[in-house]
């Protein structure tokens, strides 16, 4: 420290400060020596072939969950099953049949980011994994 | 009572708790008559060798300060920051949540926002930030910093002597910030430039010289007790004969000198004498008074830590000289905070004495193992528990008693149940005041920490209002007519306070009530109490 004065109750204070610093710096030592780049996503051939998703990639990245929520509302509450995107293209509003049709590799697409960001969506509570492949 | 003191009904209508239009830093202090105590007599300051003795008048513009007073305060502040972690922490961590604001009896009673504990402390903090913190130096007022000026100094003096160091705010502070600590250190700083009040400085000088605050010299001290001895003989027919400065006694007794000098404390003093005589006759109890250490109270505590130590030192010095086994302490408030939290640290170790043991019951007072000093309420409670006192409680039947927890024994010690146990065993009509005004929530008498002078009567009446209001409640509800307490300042302050706010209530010490009930060996039939008033049941009506 700046001045060299004696510390009183040094044992307790230093112990407290060490605990404090350990807790505060937890993220630094917890991840020591690890590199944690964002996961690589794999696109299925179908997805690659489609070139664009329902919305532009950046919008999908940040807001896909909101789109899905709105879709659910439209379908379940309003009985409306058709979505028209900005460029006028029509889609059936269905997670299983539209989204997972292209992205049939949930574990290499959905899960990678969800796991990375510690998100556990309740979508999969009802919509089973890769329904197309299994059914 | 002071002539210009407004009537109670008028005073209460003056109180409002509105805040001024101007910010507190922009509201200069107005030192108002009735709200402050006279400046210290230079002779008293000189006698104990404290600096910058001079005569000065708070009402005058010029306080005749030493030229470098700002430097003295700055250095003094720095020194105390180095000495007291409490000061550093209490200066740094207040968040101004306001929980303390309406806990202060002076704020409740005056409505003056600078009597909110948080602002009282801010008076010092603002200067601390300016002088000792980076944020204060960089940001100034935004961070609540301001320079030490003459106006600020006057504010310090006025408001640090409107705090009775009762610690009620500290109970409620989420960080335990204790305004008493801030006031104690603030007053210590003021003393560095000779700013004290006479009601503190003169008792300190007296105590230093004669052993007690009232300046009673040894022969006169003995005279007073001789006089009580005669009174007791008239009332009970028993000669109690106290002993003084006696070497080889088992126990030394020290109580505040207020009890020797002023009613109603004198009755408590008579109570002690009767109790000791009773114990001597019955059990061979061996105790001595001292004229040298004839003061339990310690107005040095209201001056500086050093002065407190200098006055307190007499207790152990006298105990050592007389060769007693332990010390019994009488009923006093701040005396007990000093004994409980300071004495051993300042003037110990008291290894020339023994761990206190009651010679009558054999009880070991383990909680006083190191200081070797026992509170009379602890001692009495133990005696009563072991059925060692013959009591005729009917003698107190004319009294409806409530108990005031004195601030210091309550919040600086925790002496709460011992006096209650004693009271409930010596009188049959005991009523508690509302729960939020007793025990650790107790309200100050309004005159503690050296503020029980005559010239600040309005301040005292304001500060004592919350306590008086609670007494009035039990007076109206249960017909309470006696306010019992274990503090000599209480006994000096309450009579005026009660007369002003609740005129039908009298004030007593604990031991007076014990002595009223105590059946003395060989006593004659008692028809009057220690005050010379008819005992209940003996009245012809």
């Amino acid at each position, binding site marked *: 420290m700046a001045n060299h004065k004696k510390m009183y109750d040094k044992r307790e204070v230093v112990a407290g400060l060490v605990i404090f610093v350990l807790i505060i710096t937890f993220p630094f030592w917890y991840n020591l020596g690890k590199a944690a780049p*964002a996961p690589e996503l794999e696109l299925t051939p179908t997805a690659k072939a489609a070139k664009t998703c329902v919305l532009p990639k950046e919008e999908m990245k940040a807001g896909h969950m909101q789109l899905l929520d709105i879709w659910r509302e439209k379908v379940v509450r309003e009985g409306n099953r058709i979505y028209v995107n900005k460029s006028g293209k029509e889609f059936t509003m269905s997670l299983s049949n539209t989204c997972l049709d292209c992205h049939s590799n949930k574990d290499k697409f959905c899960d990678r*980011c969800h796991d990375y*960001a*510690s998100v556990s969506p309740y979508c999969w509570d009802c919509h089973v994994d890769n329904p197309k492949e299994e059914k | 009572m002071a002539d210009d003191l407004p009537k109670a009904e008028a005073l209460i209508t003056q109180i409002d708790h509105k805040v001024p239009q101007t910010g507190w830093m922009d509201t200069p202090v107005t030192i108002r008559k009735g709200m402050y105590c006279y400046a210290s007599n230079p002779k008293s300051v000189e006698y104990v060798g404290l600096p910058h003795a001079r005569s000065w008048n708070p009402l005058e513009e010029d306080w005749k300060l030493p030229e470098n007073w700002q430097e003295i305060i700055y250095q003094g502040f720095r020194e105390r920051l180095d000495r007291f972690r409490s000061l550093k922490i209490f200066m740094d961590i207040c968040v101004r949540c306001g929980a303390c604001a309406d806990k202060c009896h002076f704020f409740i009673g005056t409505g003056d926002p600078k009597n909110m504990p948080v602002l009282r402390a801010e008076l010092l903090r603002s200067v601390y930030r300016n002088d000792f913190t980076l944020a204060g130096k960089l940001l100034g007022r935004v961070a609540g910093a301001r320079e030490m000026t003459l106006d600020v100094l006057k504010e310090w003096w006025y408001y640090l002597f409107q705090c009775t160091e009762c610690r009620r705010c500290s*109970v409620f502070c989420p960080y335990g910030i204790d305004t008493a600590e801030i006031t104690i250190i603030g007053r210590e700083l003021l003393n560095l430039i000779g700013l004290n009040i006479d009601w503190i400085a003169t008792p300190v000088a007296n105590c230093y010289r004669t052993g007690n605050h009232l300046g009673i010299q040894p*022969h006169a001290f003995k005279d007073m007790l001789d006089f009580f001895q005669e009174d007791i003989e008239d009332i009970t027919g028993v000669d109690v004969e106290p002993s003084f400065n006696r070497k080889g006694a088992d126990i030394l007794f020290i109580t505040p000198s207020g009890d020797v000098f002023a009613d109603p404390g004198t009755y408590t003093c008579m109570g002690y004498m009767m109790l000791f005589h009773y114990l001597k006759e019955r059990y061979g109890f061996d105790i001595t008074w001292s004229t040298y250490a004839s003061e339990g109270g310690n107005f040095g505590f209201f001056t500086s830590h050093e002065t407190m130590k200098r006055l307190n030192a007499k207790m152990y010095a006298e105990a050592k000289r007389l060769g007693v086994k332990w010390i019994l302490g009488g009923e006093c408030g701040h005396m007990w905070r000093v004994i409980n939290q300071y004495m051993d*640290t*300042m003037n110990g170790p008291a290894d020339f004495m023994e761990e206190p043991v009651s010679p009558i019951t054999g009880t070991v007072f383990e909680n006083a193992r190191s200081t070797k000093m026992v509170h009379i309420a602890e001692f009495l409670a133990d005696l009563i528990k072991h059925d060692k006192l013959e009591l005729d409680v009917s003698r107190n039947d004319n009294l409806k008693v409530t108990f005031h927890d004195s601030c210091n024994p309550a919040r600086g010690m925790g002496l709460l149940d011992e006096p209650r146990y004693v009271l409930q065993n010596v009188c049959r009509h005991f009523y508690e005041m509302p729960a939020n005004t007793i*025990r650790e929530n107790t309200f100050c008498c309004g005159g503690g920490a050296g503020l029980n002078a005559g010239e600040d009567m309005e301040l005292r009446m304001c500060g004592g209002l919350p306590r008086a209001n609670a007494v009035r409640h039990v007076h109206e509800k249960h017909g309470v007519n006696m306010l019992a307490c274990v503090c000599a300042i209480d006994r000096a302050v309450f009579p005026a306070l009660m007369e002003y706010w609740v005129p039908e209530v009298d004030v007593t010490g604990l031991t007076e009530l014990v002595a009223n009930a105590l059946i003395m060996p060989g006593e004659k039939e008692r028809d009057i109490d220690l005050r010379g008033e008819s005992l209940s049941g003996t009245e012809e009506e």
Partner: protein
Amino acid sequence: MNSKYMFSLVMVILLFLIAYIGVEVAGLYRLFGIFIPYLAAFVFVVGFVYRVVYWAQSPVPFRIPTTCGQQRSLPWIRPASLDNPSENSGVVIRMFLEIVFFRSLFRNLRFNFNKGQKFSYEWEKWLWLGSILFHWSFFTVVIRHLRFFTEPVPLCLQWLEKADSFLRLEFVTDFVQIGLPGIFMSGLVLLAALIYLLLRRMWIPQVNYVSFAADFFPLFLIIGIAVSGILMRYFAKTDIVGIKEFTMGLVTFHPKAPEVSGIFYVHLFFVSVLLAYFPFSKLMHFGGVFLSPTRNLANNSRAERHVNPWNYPVKIHTYEAYEDEFREKMIEAGLPVEKELTTNGG
């Protein structure tokens, strides 16, 4: 308008503009994303430790606990072992209750003057409730954010997130969609508690009177943090994976500032300012409460001797000096003396 809180509000708005313009217009991603956060974290840790060490460099000369209950004295009188602990175990529990549950604040009583008639002191729980909700929710929010700073994310953090989002609030219209991602209660409680604390500071005359600009500033700043966080989670959606890649880069010392929206940088800048401001402000009550001598000491100073390291000898009026002054009078009154009068007049 009150200049004290206007000042702080304007300061926070300025900070917002600095970060927003700095990123959106000037493109200073590295400054706001890397340099300032590192600096702030450094200042926080070093400043905090420095402050605590500064405190610890002063001793606690006397044991001055505030005793809020019965002392330990006679064996048959029950001591209040938590409010007036005589042993260290009691002190630990007292401190725990103080720090974690704000026990002293819980006692809060509000005084009512009742026009000078019977005063009343009623239990005032709102300040306690507001404070505890604020501190607990803020703590939860901070812990939750560790998901951005750990890979893999520890299981207990995932549980915390589950618990925090147990309430499934869903609300969908053509314009507003709430429900996915799941609502975290802590963020909303934090904001609500902050607004309560802010309003009471503005509206309760006495509290307002004792407040400085420096008391409003952290409130506005943390409100800014909460609002920008809530915006990013529910409304102005940001690429969360990109952000995690960035935050992981920060804690593994390979930082790469992402070109995401300015609102993220505002959030980050506010947090940085809070961290850097912390050690120099009243926010240090976090560290100070552990060291408060009226709470962290046992009331046993009559039983155990406590040593004051700077205790120094003082001048006292000795018995000898006293007897010398009063000897004659003492002898006359029949009081015992150490030395008799000498024949030649003493």
